[in-house]
């Protein structure tokens, strides 16, 4: 009787360990999946790239300080001086020209 009870307990204990392992494993898998979703960086917007690149050396200028044509000139100057990648420079320029108001 005691032996069969012991066997039952072992079985239930094993099942409990398996269940606990499954729960932990599934939790890790879900967490990793969520982690992958959240860890994948979202491409920065033009405004964010402006803040990232320009603040490295100087306080940000207000977009309204220059016209759209002047921002285009300045963007080439800064692209060369600060080695800003072309794709980022284009997004920053689009943001500045849209916000320049002219």
């Amino acid at each position, binding site marked *: 009787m005691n032996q069969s009870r012991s066997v039952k307990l072992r079985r239930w204990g094993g099942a409990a360990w398996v269940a606990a392992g499954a729960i932990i494993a599934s939790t890790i898998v879900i967490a990793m999946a969520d982690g992958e979703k959240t860890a994948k960086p979202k491409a*920065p917007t033009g405004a964010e790239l402006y803040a990232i690149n320009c603040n490295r050396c100087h306080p940000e200028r207000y977009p309204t300080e220059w016209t759209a044509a002047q921002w285009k000139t300045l963007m080439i100057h800064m692209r060369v001086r600060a080695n800003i990648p072309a794709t980022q420079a284009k997004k920053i320029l689009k943001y500045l020209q849209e916000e320049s108001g002219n």
Partner: protein
Amino acid sequence: MRNYFQVSSVWTIGCMMGLVLTSHALAVSDEDFNTLKDQVSKQGGRIDQVEKTQAVATNTAAKSEVSVVQPVYPASALGSSASHNFMMVGDAEVQFGKVEGQSSGFTFADFAPIFLYRASDSVLFEAGFDIGLQNGSTTLLNGQTHDSSSQTTIDLSFAQLDYLLNDYATIVAGYMLLPLGTYTERGAGWLNKIPDDPLPRALLQDSGIGVQIRGSIPLDDSGQVFTYAVYGVNGPSSVDGSGNSTTLDAGSNSIPNLDLGGNVGIKSDSTTANLHSSPSGGGRLGWFLPWKAHYDLELGVSGQSGAWDDAGKRLWSAGVLDAALHLSPYFEAKGECINTWQETDDIGTIRPRGFWIQASYKLAALDMDLPIVNDVELVSRYDRTDDDMGTRTHRCTMGYVYYLSNTLLFEGDYESIGSDDPSQAHNDFVLQFSYGF
């Protein structure tokens, strides 16, 4: 009789109807008259407006017809971003200083414009000048000289043509700021949080005439970037032409023989040539890692090597490690470690070297809601240089930047300099207004 009554009745009824209708008609015209008058007046106004609009439209149509008929040059498809554009940016500074053992005074008035001319979407010409004032001097009867009047100095800092070859490479040609570290390219007056340049920057060539290819390659979508620059320039030169470490000036004073600011391709006799047989080559590799706005790390390694004496037998080489860190919009730390190697005829290879490190903190981070305090940034720097000929100098600087606006800064700092050379050791303070435009 019957007819009379009939006629009289009809006449009477007619008169009564006439009276009634007349009185009614009079009452209606009184009410409507003003309304009709207003309506007529408004209609008149509208007609005038329509006529004016029509006139403008007619003129515009006429002009359009003219432009269609005579298209001298096709309109730019770039809209407000004209294909050509000329503009000026730059900075200006005014200083007040006191050096230990000397009288205090307004010491500096500097205007440093940068002219930018965009010739197309991929071509930009840029030139930077540094215009300042300096005392002149007069030679007196006894042969001595004394400061007298003033003279304006105009220095060409750089004049270069940029051609955007593609998304990953730009060709730069002309008189260029050299990417040895990052300080020179990012060292305009209003960008420096401390008015003076770090001491070991004097060991490097700031600019040179030549050609450069530079660019950047994005490493992912988050903004992480690998940057590069490769260049060839005329390189440094020798004051007396020899490979000796020092030479004597007109006053028999011993001065370093290495000239890091000359050799621009046109000699003093107006002939064109490099002062030695071969140009110098150099470059920089950089890695920029932002993890969000205002949080980033930048690391770089750069160097240059080439002959410096007229015979072209002695090399001058430099290696620079640079780093910059931003943690939040309020904290910044940056610095450079500089090593140079100069081969000489008389004392072998010497190794002038140094480093500087600077940290700054904006008090706005404390969120004390105090207008003046919130606009203050505290800054400190330690820099050190060793000429490898017996003189080591170090300096500790403490200061502040008060932001009157995003481009108008009021800076102040106190500097303590210690050196093996007693003539260099002193303390001083500097106040400076800096304006970036």
